[in-house]
């Protein structure tokens, strides 16, 4: 079981996260939603070990992130975590294929060729693998980023507004791809978004406001999410 637990409490003047406890089930697609400034991005950064908590604990599996040194955290990100950011996901000097295999190359591990082929096939960019990021559209770039996150088979993928810069069709393609990954590979995904349509692709939606969880919904629909969000005053 890849149960992931978060307990956060920030003592800063502005409490980005305020005494928040949440866990994400393995093999599920969870969306985190909340109004601007609700702390959803901070939560994601802490979950991924990019940011440290003032107090509290973050677990990925049995590993407590707060106890890790920088190098250990880096190795953990390399081996057990995948990322899809809102923008600037790819290294501009590397072509698409090299970007996809970059985390494996950093770790000095040969990619699983069958998995690579399958992932590359499913993002539909087989003929564009030798192109550099500047020669790809925004949607293609995000799909390459998603493929990169998937191909190292991490315990968990964190996606931070992955569709934020995409038009609705490209966004739908990307979300469909993430959904497939959850179903086909039992991939655990946590996604921050403010788009109810995007969140509707998830198995479960966690709503946070003012740094703490306020609601959650399983098997969500866009309309249902919209209702909750209205209620939260977003």
């Amino acid at each position, binding site marked *: 079981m890849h149960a992931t637990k978060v307990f956060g409490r920030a003592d800063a003047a502005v409490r980005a996260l305020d005494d928040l406890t949440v866990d994400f089930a393995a093999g599920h697609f969870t969306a985190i939603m909340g109004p601007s400034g609700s702390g959803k991005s901070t939560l994601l950064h802490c979950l991924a070990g990019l940011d440290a908590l003032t107090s509290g604990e973050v677990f990925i599996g049995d590993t407590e992130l707060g106890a890790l040194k920088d190098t250990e955290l880096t190795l953990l990100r390399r081996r057990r975590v995948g990322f899809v950011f809102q923008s600037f996901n790819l290294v*501009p000097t590397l072509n698409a294929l090299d970007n996809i295999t970059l985390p494996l190359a*950093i770790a000095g591990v040969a990619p699983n060729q069958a998995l690579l082929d399958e992932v590359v096939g499913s993002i539909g960019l087989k003929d564009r693998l030798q192109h550099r990021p500047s020669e790809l559209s925004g949607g293609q770039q995000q799909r390459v980023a998603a493929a990169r996150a998937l191909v190292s088979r991490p315990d968990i993928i964190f996606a931070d507004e992955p569709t934020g810069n995409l038009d609705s069709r490209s966004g739908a393609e990307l979300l469909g791809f993430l959904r497939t990954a959850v179903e086909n590979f039992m991939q655990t995904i946590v996604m921050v978004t403010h788009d109810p349509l995007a969140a509707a692709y998830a198995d479960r939606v966690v709503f946070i406001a003012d740094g703490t969880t306020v609601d959650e919904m399983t098997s969500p629909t866009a309309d249902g999410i919209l209702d909750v969000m209205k209620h939260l005053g977003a």
Partner: protein
Amino acid sequence: MLKVTLRGLLAHKLRLSLTAVAIVLGIAFVSSTFVVGDTINNVFGAIFTDANQGIAVVVEGQTLAGASQDIGGGQRLPVPSTLVPTVQHVNGAQQANGVIFRTGATLLSPSGKPIGGNGPPTFGANWVDSPTSPYHLRSGHSPQAADDIVVDAATATANGIRVGQTIQMVFNGGPRQPFHVSGIAGYGSADNVAGATITLFTTPTAMRVLDTQGNFDQIAVLSASGVSDTTLRDRIAAVLPANMVAQTGSAQANQQKQATQSIISILSTALLVFGLIALFVGSFLIVNTFTILIAQRSRELALLRALGATRRQVMVSVLIEAFLTGVVASAVGAALGVLLAIGLARLLGFSLTNGGLTVTPRSIIVSIVVGTVVTVIAAILPARRATRVTPMAALRAAVPEAQPVTRRRIIGGAITAAIGVILLGVGLFAGTGQTLPLLGVGTLALFIGIAYLAPLLVRPIAGALGRPLARLRGVPGRLARENAMRSPRRTASTAAALMIGVALIAAVAVIAASFKASGASAIAGSINAQLLVTDTTSQAGFSTSDAATLRADKRLADVTEVRADSIVAASANQSLLGIDPSAIDRTVAFDMVNGDAASIADAQNVLIDDTTARARGWMTGTVLTVQFPYAPKPTTKRIGGVYRGNALISGFVVSLATYAANFPTQRDFAILANAAAGQSLTAADRAMTADLSAYPTLTIQTKQQFVDANSASIDQAQSLIDVLLVLSIVIAALGVVNTLALSVLERSRELGLLRALGLTRRQTRSMVRWEAVIIALLGALLGLVIGTGMGTAVVRALADQGLSKLSVPASQLIGYVVVAFFIGVLAAVLPARRAARLSILDAIASE
């Protein structure tokens, strides 16, 4: 708009700081050169004024035929001592003193080592009892007994010489002689003459030890009251023989000042060249910094443009930023240069006890102007580029895109480089008489042209250098290679700065190695003797008694004296060697083109080298008119043979007897000898050393030792030049630091992404480090190729001046590549640390 500029300047002060350091270093060097030049001029000016203070008229011999101006004596005919009473009796002359002032007197330390001689020269002089003497006793009394000497105060202090002690001296390579220190004197108010060692004797002793043969070097005349200097000069001139001249004391001082100034200005110009090279290298750094800053600020500039700023305003804003940076950095540099001048003066061997540094407003103003102008000119190109930023294009791009290498740039670069090569070729081979300016401008054009073309070479060379790196170092190596290639122009101009320094150092290495090889081959080809004796302290030669001593030793054979001076032929000064022809084949190997070396046994015959013969149209049998420097009138000689000249022997060669007949003093320049039959070389060497043990300034060398010593002196000159070029290497290294630091800032999001994806800090540092190494190696390789080419061209051009062998010192050149590798590693330390410390969150969150 000015407000925006100033805000920008403050915001970028960190980014501009390395640029500023480059300007500071370059200008410090320039300003220190000015200060040192002025200081030395001033010191000598004071010395010559002191020396001629109160002296109305100076009588000297005519300048020798072909002689150059010189601070010491020996370049004029000596003044017969019988002339002193004649001058003394001229109406209006109150006192006339014969003065002797010559090189060749060397004090020995208690351990027997010569004192002074490296750097400032050593002089011997006679003590003149006159109210106007510049020597003022600090302690003891003037020389009275034949073995009394007075030593200058600076030398006395430096060597612990005290009044009353006995000290050994050597004159012109002769044997040791004991003297008694009767006094210690200052010169004017100073301790000595600009660091030169001076020993004063009684007049008869000075004549004896300095071998003046009863002559003086000049007569200093004091006037009776009421007689003007010019009147007295004219009256004295009327009684002088035709080969003597009289001039006023102040005219003499001015002439001496000018003579030194011309020597010092050669020295200052040479130093200034190194300062300007450093600035030139620094200008690459400036261009690079402003280009990168403008690329990074293209959004800000576009916003200004969108808000209605004109192109002109944007350009002016960038130039003002450059101007202010230039002024501040140059001012700091000029001030630093004054401090540097103290060290530089010391390096040149000048003591500053005579009144400290001379800092003129000109030194400071010129330095600041030069630094500011260089900075602004270097910023013009990037500033023009800034004005071309269209508002929309700039607002769109998130990361500044690499500038493409345009066709215009390639053509421009190729033409500039070609012009450079042509100028170099003309300067070296055409014999226009403008060699140095042509070389300077040609080299400059070549460097600029190559710098323009270098972006084309970045991809292939950096790609090739980076390939093994990617294999050995994995992802960091791979990314380093990609990063080095992503902006060819930036990489190229950073590498080009390093290229300049490396090219010059490599050229010097090739020339020096060729000098060594040519020297060794010249020695091998022109000396048959097994053993050589030379004088380490004096170019004036040494006593002929040394050869006589050796000739008496039966363990030695073929003891041959060689004397050297100059002679005027066809209106040009030519070097002249006098050689004993009796054993000429066994001691000297003349490679005869035609004629016979032994023909000089006949006093009518001379030998000449082939280069001079060809240039003048002389051949064996030609009869020509020559002027021996001391001879009253020209004489005719016949060319008895033409030999192949080399680095060691060129010019006219006459027999020792002919030499002796035409020069008043006989001093040997070298002695050649062989081991006698049945004697080993070691035994002969030991015998010679024992024979000459009383002559501490003589150096006894086997032929091989002579070759080695020749190489060592070239090595020394090479390292001096290298030291001066190190400054440009340092500035180029700063350029690497600067480019990397700015690139790291520019790529902070990318670095954040890589860190998020699992690149460790160590791997991040490694990535930046290898990028630096690729840039440094690129610069070094370009530099080596250009430098080797330039060095080869220079060697070829000087082939007929004795530089017959081309030698490319491969191991030395490889050594430079290794050094460049470490320069890259060092330059990357700070930028790499910065890259590794970047907060991942800031990097990926920054919009």
